[in-house]
């Protein structure tokens, strides 16, 4: 029986940074040196991975350093890579018009990070949503009540091990 040809290697997306992205790629290792970030470039943005307990300090540097000045939190989300949960912050600067990605990996058993609401008030509901859907807790967040799910919902629907339900009546 002929087997379908399977690609052995999954192709990687090619990175195509623009000028601002390239400038950031050169700038970030210096500015964030004390946190030992891992800098990669995704398709159109520069991503820096730091340790979870450093997130507060890194975000403060990102916001206050004049060469970065990321004063706008674009998005905060969680991605479940089964061995770890990755919290992703997309930051944007309204003054310098550049954007970067900040990532932190937490363990799925006890995912906990410092909250960034003191820096950007707009992280409030994002963190509540991440807590609801993935179970990540953010220390220092003023109010971790459920946001999207009803009271008493069991399980974390965003995670990969929460099975995608097939059609059932209720």
């Amino acid at each position, binding site marked *: 029986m002929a087997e379908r040809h399977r690609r052995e290697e999954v192709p990687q997306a090619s990175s195509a940074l623009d000028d601002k992205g390239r400038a950031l790629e050169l700038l970030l290792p210096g500015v964030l040196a004390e946190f030992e970030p891992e800098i990669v470039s995704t398709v159109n943005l520069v991503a820096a991975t730091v340790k979870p307990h450093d997130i507060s300090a890194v975000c403060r540097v990102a916001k206050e350093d004049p060469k970065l000045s990321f004063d706008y939190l674009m998005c905060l989300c969680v991605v479940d890579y089964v061995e770890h949960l990755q919290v992703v912050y997309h930051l944007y600067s309204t003054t310098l018009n550049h954007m970067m990605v900040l990532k932190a990996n937490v363990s799925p058993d006890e995912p906990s990070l410092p909250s960034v609401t003191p820096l950007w008030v707009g992280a409030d509901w994002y963190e509540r949503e991440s807590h609801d859907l993935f179970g990540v807790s953010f220390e220092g967040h003023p109010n971790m009540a459920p946001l999207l*799910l*009803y009271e008493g*919902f069991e399980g974390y*629907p965003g995670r990969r091990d*929460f099975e*995608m*339900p*097939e*059609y*059932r*009546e*209720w």
Partner: protein
Amino acid sequence: MELNMGTGNMEPRSMLNQAAPGVITARSEQLIAMARKSSLWPMTFGLACCAIEMISTYMAHHDLDRFGIVTWPSPRQSDVMIVAGTVVKKMAEPIKILYEQMPEPKWVIAMGSCATNGGPYYRSYSVVMGVDHIIPVDVYVPGCPPRPEALIDGFLKLQEKIMQDARERGRKT
């Protein structure tokens, strides 16, 4: 509606017609049903995308007002509840409370495929697969979203249903 007329070439059929010719009689259920169907007041209850098409149907181009249908915000004074949009489990309790607040006789139109059976969200963890799990539904209007003409058709079906129920003496309690 049966007309008992005692004038013209027809024999007067009942004593009432013999006594007072030229009087049209009908059963009270049918008259009341005709009044009810001609002025259905739906409660504004748009949940999601179907609400936009529902609003379009109320507006001047498709005009539900010509059928006597006037949208009314309070459940206490409305006849019909149009469930327009996806019913989410968190919303199930408010829907039940609202339904119970409506006085009799009341009807429910499930507009759109989400309210009918879950629609495009049939595999979701937080969606109720059709509002008929929570409240009894009289008319289902399919579509995603249903065209305004389809919603008007749903209302006309509901009007037919009201008259039919009265005719069969199956009054909605």
